[in-house]
C-alpha cells in the first residue's frame, strides 16, 4: 500500500497579488487595511468588544455582590481583597495557559473570560467598597433620620454617592481588559490579539500597526463612553461644580 494519495495534477489558480507596498512590507499600507477590513480587522474588533464587555459585565456583577457583602459585614472585606489581589498579580500569560490546561475549559472563550474577569475583581471590588465607605456618617444618619430603611438608604443615598469612585474603577478595569484581551489569543484565537499575533509571526508591519491602533482606539472610546455615562448618572456633581 502506498503512503501518499495521488490524483490528477492539481489546478493551481491565481490567488491575486498583493500591492507592492504589501509585498515589500512597507511601514503602513492603506490598501491592505481597506482590503482586509472586512475579513480580518472588523471581525477581530467586534470579537474584542465582545470579550471586553462580557468580562467587565460579569466582573462588575461579581464585584458588586462581594462589595455589598463586605460593606455589610466588614470582616469579609480583607479575605475577599486578598484573593482578588492574588488573582490580579498572576502573570496574564501564565494564567491563560493554566486555565487552558484545565481539561473541561481548554482552549476556549470561557477560559479567556475567566482570566479576564479575575483581573477586573481587584479594581472593581476595591473601588465599589471604597466608594461606599467614603459616604460620610452624617449623611447615612440623615437618611436614617428621614425614615429610610437600610436598603433604601443604600440604593438612594449611599450608592449614588459612591458612583464617582465606582466609575473610576470601571474605567481602569475596562481599559485593562481591552489590553489584556490581546494576550488571550494564546488560548482563544479571536479578538485583536489574533491579527497582532499573526503580524508578529510574519513580521507584517501594516497588520501590527492597524490592529494595535484599533486596540488603543477601543480603549479610548470605551473610557470616553464611561465618562459620559458617569456624567449622565451623576448630574448633581456637575451642577455642584458650576
Amino acid at each position, binding site marked *: 500500500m502506498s503512503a501518499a*494519495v495521488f490524483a490528477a495534477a492539481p489546478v493551481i489558480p491565481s490567488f491575486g497579488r498583493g500591492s507592492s507596498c504589501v509585498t515589500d512590507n512597507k511601514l503602513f499600507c492603506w490598501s491592505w487595511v481597506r482590503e482586509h477590513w472586512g475579513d480580518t480587522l472588523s471581525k477581530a474588533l467586534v470579537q474584542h468588544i465582545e470579550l471586553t464587555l462580557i468580562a467587565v459585565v460579569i466582573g462588575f456583577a461579581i464585584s458588586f455582590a462581594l462589595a455589598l457583602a463586605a460593606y455589610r459585614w466588614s470582616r469579609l472585606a480583607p479575605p475577599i481583597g486578598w484573593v482578588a489581589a492574588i488573582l490580579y498579580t498572576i502573570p496574564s500569560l501564565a494564567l491563560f495557559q493554566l486555565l487552558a490546561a484545565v481539561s473541561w475549559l481548554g482552549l476556549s472563550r470561557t477560559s479567556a473570560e475567566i482570566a479576564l474577569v479575575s483581573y477586573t475583581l481587584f479594581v472593581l471590588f476595591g473601588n465599589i467598597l471604597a466608594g461606599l465607605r467614603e459616604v460620610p456618617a452624617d449623611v447615612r444618619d440623615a437618611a436614617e433620620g428621614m425614615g429610610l430603611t437600610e436598603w433604601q438608604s443604600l440604593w438612594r443615598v449611599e450608592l449614588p454617592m459612591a458612583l464617582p469612585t465606582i466609575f473610576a474603577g470601571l474605567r481602569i478595569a475596562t481599559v485593562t481588559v481591552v489590553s489584556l484581551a490581546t494576550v488571550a489569543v494564546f488560548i482563544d484565537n479571536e479578538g485583536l490579539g489574533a491579527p497582532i499575533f499573526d503580524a508578529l509571526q510574519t513580521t507584517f508591519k501594516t497588520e501590527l500597526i492597524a490592529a494595535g491602533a484599533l486596540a488603543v482606539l477601543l480603549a479610548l472610546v470605551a473610557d470616553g463612553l464611561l465618562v459620559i455615562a458617569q456624567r449622565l448618572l451623576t448630574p448633581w456633581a456637575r451642577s455642584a461644580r458650576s
Partner: protein
Amino acid sequence: MKQSTLRIGLVIVAALALAIGIAACGSSNSGSDTTSASTAGTSTTGSTTASTGASTGASTTAAPSGKPGAGRPAVTLGDKNFTEQYILGQLYRQALDARGFTVRLKENIGSTEIADRALRSGQIDLYPEYIGIFNTTVAGDTKVYPTVDEAYQAGRAYAERHGFTLLPLTPFTDTDALAVLPAYARANNLTQVGDLARIRGLKLGAPPEFRQRATGLPGLRRLYGITDVQFFPLTIGLQYQALDSKRIDTADVFTTDGQLQGGRYTVLRDPRNVFGFQNLTPVVSTRVLSAEGPAFEQTLNAVSAKLTTEAMQRMNAAVSIDKQSPADVARTYLQANGLL
C-alpha cells in the same frame, strides 16, 4: 428587622449577579458558535456556486458528492500556529463544510505538543500533522526511516495503538532543504546536497538548532561528508535576505516556503534523505472517523491528494507575501479543483 431586609436584599443581589454570570457564560458560548457559523456561512455560499465539477482524480481519491455529512455529529478541527497550517485548516474545513459536515475550526492552537494534548483530551477531533514530526514529537520515535512509506507505516502503527488514525499522506512534503542562488549553483555546478562537500568554508545559514540536530549539520557530515562549514545562526524567515545579500552561500529553508516559487532560488536535491519526510497527514480520532462515515475520510483524502509541493508554495506565497487571507486562498484553490 431592618437587618433582615438588608440580608434578603443582599441575597437577591448575589443571586442576580450569579444569574447574569451564568447567562453571560451561556451567551459567550453561543457567541463563539455564531462567529464560527457566520464564517462557515460565507464559505458555504462560495461552495454552492462551484459544487459542480467534483471527482476528477482516481476513484480512491474522488471527492464524494452531495451532502453526505448532513446530520453527522459536529467535529472540531484544529490547526497549529503558522501560516501553512492556517491554510490547511481552511482547506479541510471548507471541503468538509461543502459536503454537509459540521466543522468547528480552532485555528492557531499552538505547537505540536499542544495540538497533540488537545487531540488526546478530545478538545479537537483532528488536525493536520507532518509525518516526521508525528514520529519524533508525538510518538517519541527518533528512528531514521529510509523511505516515506516506512515512516508512514511506523506512525500509523503508533497512532492505531493510541486511538487515532493517520489518513493518507499528501504529495507535498514540508521538509528542511538547502537552497542557493541559481547563479551560485551554476558557477559551482551544484544540483544536490552532496555537491556542497566540494566548497571550502561553506557559509551556511540556518536556525541555531540546525547546528546540533540529526537533520542538521551532524547529518550533513555523516551522510554527505560536508565538514568545512562556517555556520550562521539565523531566525526563520531571514535566511532569504541573507542569501540575496550573499552573506551566506546556502540557506536552510522549508520546501513549501512561498519564497521558493518562481525560480529565484535553487533547492538542492537530497537523495540520501538527511532531512527526512514531512508529508502531511490528517491525524483523526478513530472514534470520530467511524462516527462520521466513509464520506468524511474520502473528502479529506480528496483534498490531501491535490496538495503538491508547488501548490503549497503558491498558497503559502499568497498568504505570507501577498497577505491574502488563508480562507480566501483555500476557497480559490478548492474551487479551481472541484472540491467545493
